[in-house]
């Protein structure tokens, strides 16, 4: 577990360093994700050894957003009179973006023959 955490932190740190040094708009952890993915492609055995801790961490991804979420309630008053309009924009736009994404994905999957994957739900 400690080794896995160390590997994750090393890749995050490397990602942050590259993002800062190259002034990229991509967040450091996303670059770290890409770097670790490349390592997994070269050494799949490392992926297997990190599986338990990584899966445990991802299973509780929801927990990690809680502190930021509590911050939202402290700032709700900043919406002021725009509150209802912003709420409508958030809900409407999130629904439309999901529908657009799903629709485009399914249409292109059908065109490229990547559709009909067995459902292993």
């Amino acid at each position, binding site marked *: 577990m400690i080794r896995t955490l160390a590997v994750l932190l090393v*890749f995050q740190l490397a990602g942050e360093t590259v993002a800062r040094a190259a002034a990229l708009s991509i967040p450091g952890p996303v670059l770290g994700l890409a770097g670790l993915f490349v390592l997994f492609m070269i050494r799949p055995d490392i992926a297997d050894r990190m599986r338990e801790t990584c899966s445990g961490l991802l299973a509780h991804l929801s927990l990690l957003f*809680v*502190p930021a979420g509590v911050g*939202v309630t402290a700032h709700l008053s900043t919406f002021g009179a725009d509150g209802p309009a912003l709420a409508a924009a958030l809900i409407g736009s999130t629904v439309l973006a999901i529908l657009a994404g799903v629709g485009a994905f399914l249409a292109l999957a059908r065109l490229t023959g990547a559709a009909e994957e067995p459902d292993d739900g």
Partner: protein
Amino acid sequence: MDEAVALWSYLARDPLLWLTVTLLAYIAAERLSEMAGRHPLANPVLLAVILLSAVLTVTSTPYGTYFEGAQFVHFMLGPATVALALPLHDNFGRVRRTLLPMAGALLAGSLTAILSALGIAWALGVRGDTLLSLAPKSATAPVALGVSEAIGGVPSLTAVLVILTGITGAVVATPMLNALGIRDWRARGFAVGLAAHGIGTAHAFRVNSTAGAFSGIGMGLNAVLTAILAPLVVALI
């Protein structure tokens, strides 16, 4: 009574208390979510946030004090993002077969997220920097804040909008896509990740592991595309 007050004022300033309360609130939220049969409205992030906000209000604890303890949980977001490399690796075969569908979904979803948010808010009378703060709301928080600042938005307002977008996506995705009869977990996950970033991805992992993997990819790619598209869209309008 004075002793109790003294003890409370000591504990309330200590990170241990709020870290512990955060974990307990999350466990309670998970329980409630299970008791509600995993109803989408009983989203554990939403429930835990409501519980904790109530506790902070009742104890008149400022958010800054709370975050002293909660920051240890918050910090783990970085390593957890890096850990998304594992599901990406595990699903690489599927990912490679769907590069074109993902590219199309990314472009369609990202543009829709930006344009529809701006359009709806504008139609309802939102103007100025508040309107601009909405543009990057589907991107993951660090990217959205940077974009907001660059295009003349208010980063602190964008932070709130990003979190609310994530919760909205996590709550609406499952009932909506079930109602539409969409069973392709790749499409479902990818769309939720691009529209509702990490909170959507956390939800996707709870529903289906393939959906979670594709959601992580959608989140990562839309972080990049929003950073490119949002300034372009804002320059054009």
